[in-house]
């Protein structure tokens, strides 16, 4: 880089300029993305060993562990269960969230819907509420004896299910994520819809196509790239689910400390003070996110754009 700068006067203008412009981004990227990743990799191949009672100084040492941390993570029944759980969670959350977001976006784009300004802003609002706070609010609303829903339902003689007990807790967590995420995805889709030139589907309408037909046949295919993008974002977010279950954990018997893969990372790194296992698990999760995102992109690109290219 320095050589480029010193050559600058003689060189064609602009050779060093892009590097100068990229400089802050690259430096920060190296420091806060690349270096931590490399560091995590290094840690993931090590482990800590103690001798004897482990009391007193010098009892602990760091040794090379090879793939041991990876093997034990991938054979840990609790970790595998948490992966399966997140799979179920994603299958509940992603279609619901994106489906509702698309529905709301299409309704916003429809000329026959009223109260659009209000609805759009209101549905988008939860995006501004941090997961820790929204989980707290929903926690109150889920707990049978303090929840207004349970109170109201009881008056009509209905008993609502306790979402914080048993397997239903996944639904409770998905609901918080849905609440926080549907508005964001809706706005992304709606912005794409607004970018479609109206004449494209006005013609179809005049030909007698219904609003639903226009949505299915014209609007949705055109905004497919946005749908793919929101889907990938949702997949990434799903695999990283952490704040919601952690905040709900003290309220429920059904959320274990290894409930999601990232909770396992947190437990290993902080409760068990074993950053080495945590690093290996982190790498596994990161690879899984990469793999799933690319796989998804491959599949949908083949389906959606296979004919065009």
């Amino acid at each position, binding site marked *: 880089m320095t050589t480029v700068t010193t050559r600058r006067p003689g060189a064609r203008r602009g050779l060093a*300029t*892009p590097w100068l*412009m*990229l400089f*802050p*981004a690259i430096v*920060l*990227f190296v420091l806060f*993305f690349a270096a931590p*990743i490399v*560091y*995590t990799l290094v840690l993931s191949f090590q482990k800590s060993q103690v001798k004897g009672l482990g009391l007193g100084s010098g009892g602990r040492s760091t040794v090379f562990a090879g793939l041991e941390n990876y093997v034990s993570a991938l054979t840990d029944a609790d970790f595998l269960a948490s992966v399966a759980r997140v799979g179920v969670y994603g299958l509940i959350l992603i279609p619901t969230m994106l489906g509702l977001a698309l529905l*709301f976006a299409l*309704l*916003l784009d429809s*000329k*026959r*819907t*009223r*109260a*659009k*300004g*209000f*609805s759009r*802003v*209101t549905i*988008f*609002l*939860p995006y*501004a*509420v*941090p997961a*820790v*706070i*929204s989980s*707290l*609010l929903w926690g*109150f*609303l889920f707990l049978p004896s303090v929840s*207004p829903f349970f109170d109201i339902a009881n008056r009509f003689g209905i008993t609502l299910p306790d979402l914080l007990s048993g397997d239903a807790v996944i639904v409770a967590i998905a609901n918080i994520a849905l*609440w926080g995420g*549907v508005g964001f995805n809706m706005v*992304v*889709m709606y912005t*794409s819809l607004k*970018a479609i030139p109206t004449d494209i589907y006005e013609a179809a309408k005049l030909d007698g196509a219904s*609003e639903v037909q226009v949505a299915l046949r014209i609007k949705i295919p055109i*905004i497919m*790239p*946005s*749908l793919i*993008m929101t889907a990938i974002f949702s997949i990434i977010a799903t695999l990283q689910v*952490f704040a919601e279950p952690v*905040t709900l954990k*003290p309220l429920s018997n059904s959320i274990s400390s290894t409930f999601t893969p990232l909770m396992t*990372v947190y437990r290993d790194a902080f409760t068990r003070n074993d950053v080495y296992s945590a690093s290996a698990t*982190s790498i596994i*999760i*990161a690879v899984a*996110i990469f793999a799933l995102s690319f796989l998804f992109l491959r599949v949908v690109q083949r389906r959606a754009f296979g004919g065009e290219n």
Partner: protein
Amino acid sequence: MAATLVSARTRPSRAITVSPRERSSFFSTAVLLIGALYCLLPIVWVLFASTKDGGELFTTNTFVPSTHLWDNIVELTQYRGGLYWRWMLNTALYAGVGALLSTVVSSLAGFALAKYEFKGKATVFTVLLAGVLVPGVILAIPQYFLLAQIGLTNTYWAVLLPQIVSPYGIYLARIYTSASVPTDVIEAARTDGAGDFRIFWRIAIPMMSPALVTIFLFQFVGIWNNFMLPYIMLGNDSLYPITVGLNGLLNQGSSVPALYSLVVTGALLSIIPLVALFLVLQRFWKVDLGAGAVKA
């Protein structure tokens, strides 16, 4: 403004449509309003809850407001010498300054990637873009260790610095610049003798403003929502952002009661400025994220 735009579009088409269609408009409006109601419920709950004192929060009917909102605000303000407001300021600093710096860094990088040809460009872009897929939570632990080496943990820098670079922001800036800053305008400015950075500030930045608002908003919310990083980095509670602070009020250990009424009021007050920011900025959000994905 958005509403008038929409209604302007509505009128001509209503003239064309025939009456049966009017019926279904009730249905779609209702569906949308149900969605809005669902999103509003917890907010309404927190509004009511914040008017109650410690005992009432657990004993009185949810949707019966009480009169203690002001008392709660006063109590929150007095808590450990106004610590809550310190958290608010910290949050504004982390999210506001962080997002601003992030926008500048992203737009510079995005502009460079969009408008210059240079060796290694594809590699740089691919590597930066791969960063989008790296879970931020996973980075927090090694970031802590690296920052601890240079004694920066438990400082403002520890939360601010790692969140300035945003791979997605760079990506967005690049695709938006490609699409909306014409190369011949840049060339023209260059022939007039303008320097590259001057061109960037005076010509590109104004043209990129919708993308900049989007990047700012994304990063602002990203930082605001990032619980893990400040939670790990900060030990001193006067440096906490609001989320970590409120979480601490809830988890005081078994021998100290959780300060629910303060937390609820604190949650309400913390949402207000963010909502205001959103209401102001969302009308500027006109970037079609998907469209970029195709062009890139």
